[in-house]
């Protein structure tokens, strides 16, 4: 549960290897590569993908698990092909979440402390749909993000930007009958990391979603339109297809902007297609029917 009352500091057992986020300290391996080196690597993979497309390859829609410019992926990607399997029994269902699990106020990240967080207040809203366009109703959406200065409340984030005592950066909500979600938060800042010298992540909000089937489980990141760091970022660029990358970028929507209050962004999430045979009730958004 969100702790809305006490310390903003995380629990003692949270661990992240210090090598990645600590900006004040430059390790020898990080010093080995500059942004220029990384940009060249990204460019060469991008050129190879463009050639493959011209030769008739199908467009890629997901990140590459093996994407060397993101150094941490080198020892952490499977080298064998994912094994094609038909989802069975439990995999064709999702855990159930509801308002017992998530309080309505958890979707507002600006009211979790006594004061107002610093930063540009924003509303991020959209719909969770499955690959057939059906709304994913009554499901859990979780988000986490850096504060306006680009600092996470995480003890291993040593980026020398200020913590905000009024901002934790964690939110949850349950989607509505039409698959809709809505968060009020502040726009996160870009932050430096240790992938290479002068590496900066574009501003992003981490999203975690469930579908109606466990096979649709997804964790991803939402970005903001027009970010100058996009071409430089190996995590964003690990999705080599521009159309696919664009699916992670929210749209500024002035009609969702709340006058004298918050800027509006829209971002819809499409999960993979459903594998289960749906009943008519399920197709119209009434959860709970057995097939």
């Amino acid at each position, binding site marked *: *549960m969100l702790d809305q009352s006490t310390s903003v500091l995380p629990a003692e057992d949270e661990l992240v290897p210090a090598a990645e986020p600590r900006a004040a300290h430059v390790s020898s391996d990080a010093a080995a590569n500059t942004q220029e080196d990384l940009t060249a690597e990204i460019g060469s993979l991008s050129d190879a993908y463009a050639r493959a497309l011209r030769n008739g390859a199908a467009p890629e829609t997901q990140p590459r698990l093996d994407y060397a410019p993101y150094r941490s992926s*080198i*020892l*952490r990607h499977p080298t064998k092909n994912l*094994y094609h399997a038909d989802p*069975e029994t*439990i995999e064709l269902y999702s855990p159930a979440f509801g308002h017992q699990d998530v309080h309505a106020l958890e979707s507002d990240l600006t009211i979790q402390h006594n004061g107002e967080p610093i930063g540009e207040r924003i509303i991020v809203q959209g719909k969770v749909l499955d690959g057939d366009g059906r709304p994913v109703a009554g499901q859990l959406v979780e988000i986490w993000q850096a504060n306006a200065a680009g600092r996470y409340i*995480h003890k291993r984030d040593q980026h020398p930007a200020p913590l905000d005592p009024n901002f934790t950066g964690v939110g949850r909500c349950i989607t509505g009958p039409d698959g809709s979600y809505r968060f009020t938060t502040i726009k996160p800042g870009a932050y430096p990391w240790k992938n290479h010298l002068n590496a900066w992540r574009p501003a992003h909000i981490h999203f975690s979603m469930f579908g109606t089937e466990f096979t649709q489980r997804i964790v991803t990141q939402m970005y903001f339109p027009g970010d100058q760091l996009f071409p430089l970022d190996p995590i964003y660029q690990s999705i080599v297809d521009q159309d*696919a990358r664009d699916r992670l970028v929210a749209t500024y929507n002035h009609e969702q902007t709340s006058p004298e209050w918050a800027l509006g962004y829209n971002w819809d999430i*499409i999960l993979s297609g459903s594998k289960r045979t749906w009943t008519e009730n399920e197709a119209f958004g009434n959860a709970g029917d057995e097939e």
Partner: protein
Amino acid sequence: MSKLTPTSLTPTVLTPTPGQTVGPFYGYALPFTKDNELLAPGTPGSIRLQGIVYDGAGDPIPDAILEIWQPDADGNIVQRTGSLVRDGYTFTGWGRAAVGNTGVYTFTTVNPGPTEPVPGKPGAAPFIAVAVFARGLMNRLFTRVYLPENEEALAKDPLLSSLDPERRKTLIARRDHDGGLSWDIRLQGRDETVFLDFEGIRA
């Protein structure tokens, strides 16, 4: 403005949103109290499921987070809320565990029971569905952990029987002396765990 809004309930095949790495900073966001306790430890019938997540150099990964989703001991697929705020009595079938500093994860759960076979298909051996997330892992991975007993069911299982024996064993847990299950995950390398793709090719 939206590129993605469907116009009707007629099935429209939409392209899925890409995943991205869970990153290093999920630790203050995704874990929650009793996240890895599908049952309270010590409850009759409860077991420990534990293991280590390894990288391609054979080193434990200290920043991975796992989710499990499983039927109850009788093979029922549970559709009850309360996973995030556990009341200590309701088995919801879902849990989440961040690994500790040494790469070890732990769940308290039950042995999954056999679910009803799909008509016309051979019965699958009981398993726990697993999703793996980690810093450095660009997208979540799906896999399964099977119980080591009932070799006949394992031999007939549609997935296991299609794998060569060396790879099959990466999906089968060891039974501990205390009745618990041990099952390690190897993201890369010779004993790389079998990770699953449910998508195949869409027309």
